[in-house]
């Protein structure tokens, strides 16, 4: 009987697990290049008319832009999404069905789908409004959004349909909130979030990309944290943060750290619902608010992704970060101590003086009495 070695068993199980764990996508034998054979033609379009109305649809796909998409980066090909195309018939005028089935994002994005199904954007289907994934994310050029600013995130998503200025009348300082806080931070309070620190040049009014920062510092990507995190605890503390600013200044770069409160790219962000938005100001604007627990320094990448590096919350509550302050939430505790001393000084002065005033009442009465007596004597002697 043939002996089976433990190593062979392990390899066998590894293959089984690998098969089970692989994405549920059966790649058809159609390469992207075949699709781009036609769809890279900028003039490619289709049109239909029923004699009354005329419909025209652009069928051009920008291959360059597609090559930067998150799907392409993850090896997702055209027919992985357009799954109803099984074969291409080059003898036909159009090598596949003229009308393709709608792309079903839920095949892969199951967690996001579950969250979306429990959102107001799903519920509006009952009112005859259909909102698909593409309404926010677009079609072929979906890019990572980790590196985007609040403004870019909002413009790419919510602001396509919603004008935040038409609501939020209850919210003080609307502009400031809209500029520094991503919508879903309040509208999906359970979504994980963090303070997003990026490099901003006040002179040129532009953000530095991670590559630019690394180039300025003259280091490779994998040298960034070893150079910065001198105590090797994996967290950029106040001193290390200040060192980074100093290093940039030594390179004649006067970048400031631009801070925003953004949601993490987590499926739960799709679960936006009416009436569940955060309206409690003190959730953020109080000491030790959980909204400022996670702080990350971000090196953005051209493809929209970003490297995040954990930063000590104390940085938010220090003078190291001079261009961000959330009322009450990131206050400097030292100022509270100075304030307490000022108040205590004022009260002590008053109470001390008052106490001596009360204690010396008999003395003043005695002096007044003696003064009156002497003035009477003077008048009598006259």
């Amino acid at each position, binding site marked *: 009987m043939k002996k089976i070695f433990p190593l062979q068993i392990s390899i066998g199980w590894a293959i089984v697990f690998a098969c089970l764990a692989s994405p549920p996508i059966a790649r058809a034998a159609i390469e992207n290049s075949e699709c781009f054979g036609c769809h890279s033609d900028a003039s490619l379009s289709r049109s239909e008319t029923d004699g009354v109305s005329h419909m025209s649809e652009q069928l051009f796909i920008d291959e360059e832009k597609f090559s930067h998409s998150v799907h392409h980066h993850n090896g997702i090909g055209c027919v992985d999404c357009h799954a109803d195309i099984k074969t291409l018939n080059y003898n036909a005028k159009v090598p596949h069905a003229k009308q393709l089935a709608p792309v079903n994002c839920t095949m892969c994005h199951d967690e996001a789908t579950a969250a979306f199904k429990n959102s107001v954007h799903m519920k509006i289907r009952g009112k005859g409004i259909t909102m698909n994934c593409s309404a926010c994310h677009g079609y072929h050029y979906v890019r990572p959004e980790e590196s985007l600013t609040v403004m870019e995130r909002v413009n790419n998503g919510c602001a396509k349909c919603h004008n935040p200025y038409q609501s939020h009348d209850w919210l*003080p300082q609307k502009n400031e909130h809209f500029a520094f806080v991503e919508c879903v931070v309040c509208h999906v309070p359970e979504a994980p979030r963090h303070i997003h620190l990026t490099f901003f040049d006040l002179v040129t009014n532009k953000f530095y990309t991670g590559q630019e920062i690394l180039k300025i510092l003259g280091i490779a990507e994998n040298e960034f944290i070893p150079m910065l995190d001198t105590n090797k605890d994996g967290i950029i503390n106040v001193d290390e943060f200040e060192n980074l600013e100093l290093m940039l200044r030594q390179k004649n770069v006067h970048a400031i750290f631009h801070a925003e409160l953004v949601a993490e790219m987590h499926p739960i962000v799709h679960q936006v619902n009416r009436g569940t938005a955060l309206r409690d100001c003190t959730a953020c604007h109080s000491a030790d608010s959980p909204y400022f627990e996670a702080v990350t320094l971000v090196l953005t990448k051209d493809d929209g992704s970003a490297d995040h590096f954990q930063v000590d919350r104390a940085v938010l509550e220090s003078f190291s970060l001079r261009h961000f302050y959330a009322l*009450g939430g990131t206050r400097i505790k030292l100022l509270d101590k*100075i304030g307490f001393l000022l108040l205590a000084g004022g009260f002590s002065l008053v109470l001390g003086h008052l106490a001596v005033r009360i204690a010396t009442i008999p003395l*003043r009465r005695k002096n007044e009495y003696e003064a009156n007596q002497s003035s009477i004597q003077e008048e009598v002697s006259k």
Partner: protein
Amino acid sequence: MKQDKLIYIHPAPVRVWHWLNATGIVLLVVTGFQIRYAEMLNLMPLKNAISLHNYAGFGVIATYFLWLYYYLSTGKITIYFPNLNTFVEKAVKQIKFYGYGIFRGEPNPHVMTPENKFNVLQQKAYMGIMFVLLPAQMISGVFLWKVKGYSDYIHLLGGIRLIDTIHVLFFFFFASFLVVHCYLATLGHTPLAHFKAMFTGYEEHH
């Protein structure tokens, strides 16, 4: 026996400004504490505290310009400027009075007149408050009111953290000053004499 003598010290515009300003400062201090310590205090919702703080702030700014217009147009602004030649001597006398003479019942070395109603310590303190601290507080307050709108100026001045630090430190100063100011107002010939004078305009001289 000396006769009590009434002297018109505080003209109507000054009295109006004083009480409007006082109301504004009290509101600013109370709402300021609520805003900074929202997790500890529960005087009012934070949103209301911020709104009230903004309104009171603009009220104080408006009354500041009332004050400035009155004192500049009448030329009385000079009552805030101590005479540097006699300042040290008078300041020492005044400090001695507050720290010692007042307990023995000695007369105040400064005699209040309409042209010279402040003693040198008051002159120095109010000059600093009206020409430095209050304007700094007003400007920093306006910047904090519209952080986004004034972001260019805020960046130019060193960032929101610096603006906030100035605003907070002066806030604590004004809160402390309010206490000391009210106490010092009880040091007239009767505890309520200066308070009455700020309503009637007339101080009693003894």
